[in-house]
């Protein structure tokens, strides 16, 4: 337990630079892939590795690659999704900042496997500081013959570009990302067709998360079986977890999938326990859109077994008594956390970020936020609580893209597991009004 794939070398001084990265075994996978492997062999290894999309949906990467339309004579594209805007998730930026060449290396191997000659890295608008880092790394790769025409003397050519968004969470949704990359308004497309058939500029396109692509170099170097031997069951490999909230050691950790949640929260080399020795109240284990669950559920499954850091274990019990690993944004709440306030805050985010195309999400997110604002500030009534559940239920599954679900789940799960918190807010409005967070005043003066 505890093997690392991505962050092994992250502490080496100046690993950002091409020379240092290369001296520590960087770009070896590109040489191996281009000179000794056929594209299909790489796809086969990725399939064997069991690597699953690290952007949140955990779709098997190898399988996704086989969907890419190869019959049309159109150019194919690889797009790296670096939009990372989910509250609680901050792992991709860490990877891109520390190890830009690891991502580029993975993308070259992936492009070769997919028959792609143009690849894009789309980063969120707020990541301006990464623009320079990534561009410099790309320039170095060009200079050293790993990008451009006839890479390493083979007949494979690849151009790579970085493109910043303009600050919209929705542009992390893959089809909205493609629209944005094309220079249009970032509205998610209606699927089907899927990007693998009709993607960027109407051409077949693969969209993968930063962390997903960064793993490909290792798989090429050591083979799919070696990768699959790390982790547990269908959750192979390692996962970057960005841990935050009321813990002693917030930060980005690379964990081998399969360790227990309890160890992750309490062990010194990871979160290091709850701050000030308080009690754990709740955890959102996979970024703000996955269900929030109380202590007893995050530590143990319904059957009483220890909950593990794997896709399967975290999801065990469905939404009744489970949650999701999602993108690995691990948010921890102590006994003093106000779940209502947290739910209102998340809700405010989704309301703000809805693209507004489809009616359930456009109207429902605002409605939920307004009700939650009232409850949090002492103006709620009992009927509001069930109304929230009903609104969340009506949004879920009825929208164009999963942002609607992402907005509904946190609300539904908060009420499912912490209904007492909501009831307390309704029953004791005077107490609630006297807890000064300072935000009541600010919010009222924003309109």
């Amino acid at each position, binding site marked *: 337990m505890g093997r690392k794939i991505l962050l092994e070398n992250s502490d080496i001084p100046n690993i950002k630079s091409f020379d240092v990265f290369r001296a520590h075994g960087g770009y070896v996978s590109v040489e191996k892939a281009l000179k000794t492997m056929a594209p299909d062999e790489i796809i086969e290894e990725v399939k064997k590795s069991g690597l699953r999309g690290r952007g949140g949906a955990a779709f098997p990467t190898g399988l996704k690659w086989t969907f890419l339309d190869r019959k049309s004579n159109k150019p194919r594209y690889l797009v790296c999704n670096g939009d990372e805007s989910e509250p609680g998730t901050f792992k991709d930026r860490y990877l891109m900042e520390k190890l830009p060449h690891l991502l580029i290396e993975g993308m070259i191997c992936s492009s070769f496997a997919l028959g792609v000659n143009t690849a894009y890295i789309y980063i969120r608008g707020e990541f301006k500081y990464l623009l320079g880092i990534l561009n410099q790394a790309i320039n170095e790769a060009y200079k050293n013959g790993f990008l451009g025409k006839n890479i390493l003397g083979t007949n494979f050519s690849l151009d790579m570009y970085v493109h910043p968004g303009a600050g919209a969470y929705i542009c992390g949704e893959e089809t909205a990302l493609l629209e944005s990359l094309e220079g249009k308004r970032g509205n998610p497309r*209606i699927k089907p067709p899927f990007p693998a058939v009709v993607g960027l500029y109407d051409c077949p396109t693969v969209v993968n998360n930063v962390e997903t692509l960064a793993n490909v170099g290792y798989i090429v170097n050591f083979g799919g079986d070696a990768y699959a031997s790390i982790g547990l069951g269908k959750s192979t490999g390692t996962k970057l977890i960005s841990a935050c909230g009321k813990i002693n050691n917030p930060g980005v950790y690379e964990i081998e999938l399969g360790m227990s949640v309890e160890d992750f929260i309490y062990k010194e080399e990871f979160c290091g326990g709850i701050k000030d020795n308080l009690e754990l109240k709740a955890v959102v284990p996979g970024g703000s859109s996955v269900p929030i669950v109380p202590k007893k559920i995050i530590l143990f499954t319904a059957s009483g077994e220890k909950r593990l850091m794997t896709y399967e274990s975290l999801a065990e019990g469905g939404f009744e008594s489970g949650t999701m690993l999602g993108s690995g944004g691990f948010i921890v709440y102590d006994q003093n956390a106000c779940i209502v306030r947290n739910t209102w805050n998340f809700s405010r985010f989704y309301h*703000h970020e*809805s693209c507004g195309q489809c*009616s359930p999400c456009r109207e429902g997110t605002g*409605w939920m936020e*307004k009700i939650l604002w009232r409850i949090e500030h002492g103006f709620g009534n009992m009927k509001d609580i069930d109304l929230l559940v009903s609104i969340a239920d*009506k949004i879920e*599954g009825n929208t164009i893209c999963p942002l609607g679900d992402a907005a509904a789940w946190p609300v539904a799960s908060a009420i499912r597991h912490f209904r007492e918190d909501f009831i307390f807010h309704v029953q004791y409005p005077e107490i609630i009004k006297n807890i000064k967070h300072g935000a009541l005043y600010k919010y009222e003066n924003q309109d």
Partner: protein
Amino acid sequence: MLKLTIDHQTIEVAEGTTILQAARKIGGSVVPPAMCWYSKLEGSGGKCRTCLVKVSEGSAKDPRPLPKLVASCRTPVIDGMVVQNKTSPEVLEARKAIVEFLLINHPLDCPVCDQAGECDLQDLSYDNGKVSCRYQESRREFDVIDIGNLIKLHMNRCILCYRCVYVADQISGKRIHGILYRGDVSEISTYIKNSIDHNFSGNVIDVCPVGALTDKTFRFKNRVWFLKPMTAHRDCPTCSGKVIAWMRGSEIYRITGRKDEFGEVEEFICNECRFEKKNINDWIVEGPTTLKRHSVISQNHYKEIKTPSVINPLEEKMETQTNDE
């Protein structure tokens, strides 16, 4: 040919046909309502979600049901597909919710809205909505603005179906009319307040399902149900010249395109026909037309209501108050 069954009725359709198009071929109650899709506008649909249906059997090859309701306007038929519209309680429930969502920020100013009587949103909520309203928050508000000198925009009433955007894009050629901002504060705008001066811009009024875009030469002149729709034509150098003239006595109050039974314009008409030809001598009036679709102006439709004949909005409030005490 592909076989599709919808609400127990079977039809064969060509490859590429959507569920909604197939349902329209059958007609009647199997047709899901459509507030955003428009057959003549490429790329439209998928947004309002009123046309959601249940696919209870995915195809002949793989008869498993689809996990979610799908937008019938953008879902192509697969051979052997079995679809439920009115026969699925889940669909009716979802549709009721969509109507509620569409109405929470709608100003419900029908008494002063020119669209009243021929409004798709009125029809939709009458057919699918519920009587009471659970929304008690503030509604979003925008100023009324002029889009050029012929069209008024009441953004408060807009349901963001994007139809007018596609018209501006596809019919009038110049993309000067689009959507600003996002979420529930997004709004229709002509970029940088440009007016739409294209010769076919008036069609945005006809495609708008609600009273968000109205004809400034007709606003507040009359209620549509007092007017007689007459088919009329003229020899127009720009468009087909085939229109509906809305008349009272021998006076023409407004000109619109001719609409089919699904409320879609048959042929787009030019601004000259629409806004400038208001004299009876400009037109060859063919005779009265019956509107093919149900709406308040086609009469009898709203008479079906049984109980209560008068809706008392306070009734529910009074009940809940006694309950609370």
